[in-house]
């Protein structure tokens, strides 16, 4: 049976801790921060956390693959390969759209979240927000 030792700070963690103490203390008042995080005091550019909508990507991608799969076949020039090209367009549109749809549906209502290491949590917390 492995005995769990208490986690120790690595050098990275220690550095982050020092950085953290340089900042003003974060208390419960920070909870009222809007999801769009403010610019970091340290001037490090990082992506802001945004709420992702579901409807907008669905509309965009449905339109995109719909154009390729439904409207595209009308523009294929006449020739001996017309049938093959139309087949390819429709099949590509269906396969790729379905694949993207499955990916986004699987993440729509997650039942559990990611399990992160404490260092990752430190890092992400300070450098992504």
């Amino acid at each position, binding site marked *: 049976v492995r005995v769990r030792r208490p986690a120790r700070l690595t050098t990275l963690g220690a550095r982050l801790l020092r950085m953290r103490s340089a900042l003003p203390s974060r208390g419960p008042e920070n909870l009222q921060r809007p999801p769009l995080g403010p610019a970091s005091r340290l001037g490090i550019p990082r*992506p802001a956390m945004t709420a992702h909508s579901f409807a907008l990507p669905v509309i965009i991608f449905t339109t995109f693959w719909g154009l390729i799969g439904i409207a595209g076949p009308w523009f294929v020039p006449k020739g001996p390969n017309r049938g*093959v090209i139309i087949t390819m367009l429709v099949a590509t549109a269906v396969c790729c759209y379905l694949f993207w749809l499955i990916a986004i549906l699987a*993440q729509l209502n997650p039942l559990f979240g990611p399990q992160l*290491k404490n260092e990752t949590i430190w890092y992400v917390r300070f450098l*992504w927000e």
Partner: protein
Amino acid sequence: MGSMFRSEEVALVQLFLPTAAAYTCVSRLGELGLVEFRDLNASVSAFQRRFVVDVRRCEELEKTFTFLQEEVQRAGLVLPPPEGRLPAPPPRDLLRIQEETERLAQELRDVRGNQQALRVQLHQLQLHAAVLGQGHSPQLAATHTYGASERTPLLQAPGGPHQDLRVNFVAGAVEPHKAPALERLLWRACRGFLIASFRELERPLEHPVTGEPATWMTFLISYWGEQIGQKIRKITDCFHCHIFPFLEQEEARRAALQQQSQELQEVLGETERFLSQVLGRVQQLLPPAQVQVRKMKAVYLALNQCSMSTTHKCLIAETWCAARDLPALQEALRDSSMEEGVSAVAHRIPSRDMPPTLIRTNRFTASFQGIVDAYGVGRYQEVNPAPYTIVTFPFLFAVMFGDVGHGLLMFLFALAMVLAENRPAMKAAQNEIWQTFFGGRYLLLLMGLFSVYTGFIYNECFSRASSIFPSGWSVAAMANQSGWSDAFLAQHTMLTLDPNVTGVFLGPYPFGIDPIWSLAANHLSFLNSFKMKMSVILGVVHMAFGVVLGVFNHMHFGQRHRLLLETLPELTFLLGLFGYLVFLVIYKWLRVSATNAASAPSILIHFINMFLFSHSPTNRPLYPRQEVVQAMLVVLALAMVPVLLLGTPLHLLHRHRRRRRRPTGRKQEDKAGLLGLPDASVNCWGSDEEKAGGLEDEQEAEEPTVNVQVESFHRRTQPVHRHCSQETCLSSIPRRSLGPLAVGHRQPLTQFLSL
């Protein structure tokens, strides 16, 4: 959808070729690659056919060609590939080609023989010169010193009566690895009566036959006594040594030898120059002659498959020809027979056999059609799955591969091959591995392209995730709301974000998998579940598509009953069970959220219970009345199984019985009509296997066995394959130059492959 949707219409065409023009017509047809001959003389052995003599002559010529080719390769030269269009020569030219090749072969043999002899001679001379030139000085010096008169005995003979003791010499050369053995044997056999000295030559000489350099050992044996001399001769014979006469007047001898060897070398030089000339002529003559003779042989083999008409004026051939090419066929026949002043005729006849499957492809579609044909060639006019595989094969590969960086590398490699595909260096490469890659360049191109797309969805570029969009999971919100102070974090190595906490999960990542998962320790838990469900969905979609493709077959062949008896039950079975599973998956994705994650229903348990008609109390239902719905679906699906197994056979049995009950007069009439067809194919009583299952309304059709129907269920997504034709001559346009080879190919008549 062009010609790739289903195979082309192929007609049975009967050709009447007047004997005078038969050869040219068949040669012309071979060049065009329009037809495939049927063997009308299947019962006749190869040795009894009409044109066996001509075929034999061609084969003799080919033997000579092989000999010439070997000689050219032995000389280290390369045969250039044949250039230009080389049609099969008319029969009278065969004699000319035969004479030329015979002459060249004879010359080559003579010259080679001469060269060998000269080289052996030269070798001997060189050895001789070397032996004489070797300074075996101590021995000679001894003789000179002591041998004022050759009669002086070397030894103080105790007896005195040995008056004729003379020193004799044996000089020669022996191969270096035999020298020690020779020395030892000489010493053991003639000890005391000889003095042998062995010296190695300074420079190696070439072996006349093999050309390997070998450093010979020269020896000089001085002995006295006749018997010793005989013994020495025998021993040296045994060791295959070259013995040369040894005289004291060396210098003149050596000069003579030098001159001789010089002359010989000049002659040898001339011979070799002549040899290279002959080889040059062979190089010029051989490649086109090889192609021509091969074509001629193919034409005769094709002619062997034709039967002679009763008046012996005409050859009758039966060929399969694409209906689209019939005008071209007639024009070709007309043109080639016009030269002889006769006219060849082609007309279409109805056939009972299933025609071969013909699908025209270009260099892009050829590789995909090849992959599909490897699983089995489709029946005549069956729906061809190849155009769909152009996308689905690379797509399914990409689902498994899924990396932007690696996909991009694959795409660029394939793009390089595609852009350089017309360079002659590409096609001439002999490396098999390279040929495999080059042949599949379009497949690799598409696989790379789709892999880039799926790599973006999986969010993997060289196995690293990238945040194109900001992540939908907020660590800060979780940390703040759960009170994750630094001390708390220092104590716990692993912490999980909880989507139930407000603000932690901000929405699904718009394109692909969220990058936070690449940082997570439990990313496999999420990804495995996602990928398994994705595989099920993709698989069910593909299978349903395959079943739907079968509908086109049933409509085309006029087998409407199969729509009701096969397609509908199959769709019910598939969608009722696995389509329902897909429904469960999507329903759970949409309706079950983190709020009741602890009691989230397990689809796997539900699915198992569905088949076992059991119930797990801990697993809550996804929707009300779920058990009732599932029970109904299982019963319905299981009820479809006997319909699938027995539906079509019973229907056909019923139809067969109904036809039998019709008045017999009608049956006789049909039979007579069949036999009395004026244009009936000479070879219409082909294999039974080919006819069975082809057309449903055969008079004497046996009822199909249940086995066929069971297999047909499994074969829904793949076309039924029966080998009616192997590489029809039109499978790809770039193979025109090998048209005659396909013309002469014999088509196996009976090949019924079952899965």
